[in-house]
């Protein structure tokens, strides 16, 4: 929790209770960092899922498709799956970025 000190003092002077300082100020202020974490998380999650599908044995999924195509030298299918995976990562990141902009609209400006 790294809320601006002035903001906490402002709330304290108003006589706001500790619970409301936590809920209304600290939590709101932490949102910006939370979204940075979410965006990193979604990228890593995608990588893990694809790799898990490749090697830990699954019947479906993009990772499974890539490794299957590679085994039988189906180059077209393999690259198609790799490119789709890349596009999926990009779009997920974009979607989170848009949500972030909507939710923490003040972030880059305040």
């Amino acid at each position, binding site marked *: 929790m790294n809320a*601006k*000190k*002035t*903001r906490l*003092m*402002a709330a*304290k*002077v*108003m*006589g*706001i*209770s500790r619970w*409301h300082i936590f809920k*209304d*100020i600290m939590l*709101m202020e932490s*949102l910006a960092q939370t979204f940075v974490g979410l965006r990193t998380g979604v990228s890593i999650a995608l990588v893990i899922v694809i790799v898990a599908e490749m090697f830990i044995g699954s019947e479906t999924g993009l990772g499974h498709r890539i490794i299957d195509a590679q085994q039988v030298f189906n180059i077209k299918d393999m690259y198609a799956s790799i490119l789709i995976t890349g596009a999926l990562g990009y779009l997920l990141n974009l979607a989170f970025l848009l949500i972030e902009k909507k939710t*923490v*609209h*003040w972030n880059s*400006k*305040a």
Partner: protein
Amino acid sequence: MTHPLSLNPDYKGPQLPQYATRPDTHVTIRGLSKAFAGQPLYTDLNLDLPRGKIVSIFGPNGCGKSTLMNMIAGLIPVDKGDILFDGKTLAQTTIGYVFQNYRDALFPWMSARANIAYPLIRHGMSKADVNARVEELTQMFDIRFDLKRYPYELSGGQQQTVCIMRALATRPEVMFLDEPFSALDFEMTLFIRDKLQEVQLATGVTMLIVSHDLEDAVFLADEILLLTRRPTQIAEIVPFDLPRPRGSEIMSHPEFIRVKAHTLEIFKREMAL
């Protein structure tokens, strides 16, 4: 056998250290002590702040102007001493505080209007009352910009105006202003100076202003509280009682110039020590 002190007919109760209370006192400070890292800043400070007046605190760098104000506002703990508002403690008193850094003081996730309403809502005021109060403040400050906008969409002066409105929303008894002009351009400084006087006249709130600009300090003040270098004592309390509202033309008034020169003289004397 010695009699208990209280049975002595001459005894008048516990005496505060040779310091008579002024009749118009609002904030009473007694025996205030504060040290930072073993270095005493204030030792046994006694001070009365008059009711319904504007007091400017002025002094050399690092003498603890802001510290004094923050201690009164309860933002910095005191080592020793009492601070009472009309005999009440801080917890029983409504105060308002305007920070130097308005950008950090406002809540950027709320619109300007929601910022002003926030302390009211948290004090359990009904929605209709909150709206009425915000409307009243908007009238008082003659707000022309859209309060539905977010703080970062407003200019510096507008943001500081919102800060002052928020501080006033709860009808505080005492209002603290920590260098409210230092981040503003001259035009906004003039505007906010006028507004502060207007508000003070309308509400009769006791105001305490820390300023590092002598002109601002004298212009707004009924009394200028001059502090010495560390360890800080009160150098002098200079009264300045030109009638209000004071327009910028009083800056060439002989009384203004006299008080300013006198204040500067004491300031220089304190600097030289």
